């Protein structure tokens, strides 16, 4: 894509029927650091790679809680993402006030898309330079949506956006058939492995990635099931157990003896699952064994 005479403002069509400014805005999304989202029948998980402007600065915030049942991960211009998140929060609060029920995810995404479209049809505006992955749980179940600067939006079972997201997408395409019935822990693991593919140099650490989960723990039966797991962001110390879990689970496949050790650990897993299933978003397959003594099971409730 290179400069031409039809790309000066967003209200000019090119002879090929394109609006170049919108495409350039989508480039800005591709330059942002990677965000990954995936969903199962009960939960949606977002995972992001955080970038730091320099060694001295903090990492940019990529995940925003919008409401108890909804949150977003952004890729692209952080400032535009912040502004959209403020709009989404305000809409959710107003919806709750008027209808006394949580805002349906798809409806909010549509409103954001409509707001984005306005910026593509005004000569004094510019498109938002940010793509969102919206993860939410409403009365119709868990949902994952992607929004674009163009005003388009799509629902996905799994998606990755941002720089080097193709690598993450490839991982997701390979594994997505299994996502539907995944437990929460397995889903987080897949999310971390997917976002790990997008790292160019360096390791996945608790400092450079953040994860968010939302959904409903499986309970009695179907929709009337367990507790709602409110949108929770896991960062720094909270995400460390899951990163450790990644390493531990990768090891056994390499060595024969440790395979047997894994099998011995297996009967213990269901017990642990029951112990921690008190409204907290834990459960799922066991870890390598050693790491999970400390708060590995519990997910704290607030950011």
């Amino acid at each position, binding site marked *: 894509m290179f400069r031409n005479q039809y790309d000066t403002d967003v209200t000019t069509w090119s002879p090929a029927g394109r609006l170049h400014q919108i495409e350039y805005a989508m480039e800005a999304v591709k330059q942002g650091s990677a965000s990954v989202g995936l969903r199962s029948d009960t939960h949606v998980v977002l995972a992001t790679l955080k970038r730091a402007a320099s060694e001295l600065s903090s990492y940019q915030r990529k995940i925003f809680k919008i409401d108890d049942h909804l949150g977003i991960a952004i890729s692209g211009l952080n400032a535009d993402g912040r502004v959209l998140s403020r709009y989404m*929060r305000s809409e959710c609060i107003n919806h709750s*006030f008027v209808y006394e029920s949580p805002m349906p995810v798809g409806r909010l995404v549509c409103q954001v898309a409509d707001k984005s479209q306005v910026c593509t049809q005004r000569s004094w505006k510019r498109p938002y330079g940010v793509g969102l992955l919206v993860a939410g749980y409403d009365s119709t179940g868990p949902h994952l949506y992607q929004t674009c600067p163009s005003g388009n939006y799509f629902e996905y079972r799994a998606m990755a956006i941002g720089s080097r997201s193709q690598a993450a997408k490839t991982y997701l395409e390979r594994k997505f058939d299994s996502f539907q019935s995944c437990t929460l822990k397995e889903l987080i693991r897949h999310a971390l492995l997917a976002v790990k593919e997008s790292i160019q140099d360096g390791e996945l650490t608790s400092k450079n990635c953040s994860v968010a989960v939302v959904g409903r723990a499986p309970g009695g039966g179907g929709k009337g099931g367990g507790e709602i797991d409110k949108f929770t962001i896991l960062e720094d110390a909270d995400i460390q157990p899951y990163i450790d879990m990644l390493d531990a689970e990768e090891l056994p496949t390499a060595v024969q003896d440790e395979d047997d050790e894994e099998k011995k650990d297996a009967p213990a897993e269901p017990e642990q699952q029951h112990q921690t299933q008190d409204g907290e978003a834990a459960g799922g397959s066991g870890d390598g064994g050693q790491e999970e003594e400390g708060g590995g099971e519990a997910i704290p409730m607030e*950011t």
Partner: protein
Amino acid sequence: MACTLSMEAQAEGVETRGVVKNRSSFNPYDNNGGTCVAIAGEDYCVIAADTRLSTGFSILTRDASKIVQLSEKSVLGTSGFQADMKTLQKMLNAKNQVYRHQHNKEMSCPAMAQLLSNTLYYKRFFPYYTFNLLGGLDNEGKGCVYTYDAVGSYERVGYSVQGTGQQLVVPVLDNQLKSASPLLYPPQSTATPLTESEAVDIVKDTMASAGERDIYTGDAVEVVIINRQGIRRETFPLKKD
């Protein structure tokens, strides 16, 4: 049926110099009755309210809550006009959510107290017909009670009562709570030195007494206790007459 349903539109004829003009009027307010009590202790706070909703001389329901939890450490009890009560609660909830998003932390009770005052004064010239009590733990973990009038004038106190049973209950609390006198100089906190269970017992007794004489108070009393461990609700029956 009640004699005066004060929210209905009224029309009356007014005669002036032999000409009769019909004047309509509409009273936007109604008093749905009920009594609210709040007591602050050393490390706890108790808020109680009866659960009867009435209009005129009729009972609308025996089972309506007047108490709502606004944040982790603050609980609001309101008596007055139920529509304004509910709207005020919803407004405060929404503002609390905005605060949590902007500041990334829960609102403290003193912060909520100021917010409530500002929200009420915002409608200074068409007030919320509500008489509020905000209870909770302050930033040091001590019990606090804030008492309001309809337009947001507020004060931190050790205990307070609002509603139709106010005049019946306040003298009893003055007598029983063993708090410091509000007239002392230098001022001392009027929070009660009693224990939590003693305070709850006093609340139950005073609400029962109010229920004896005040026709708008009765059916059941909902007691909410805030302390370091958290917030819990209990309900006790009152006379239904």
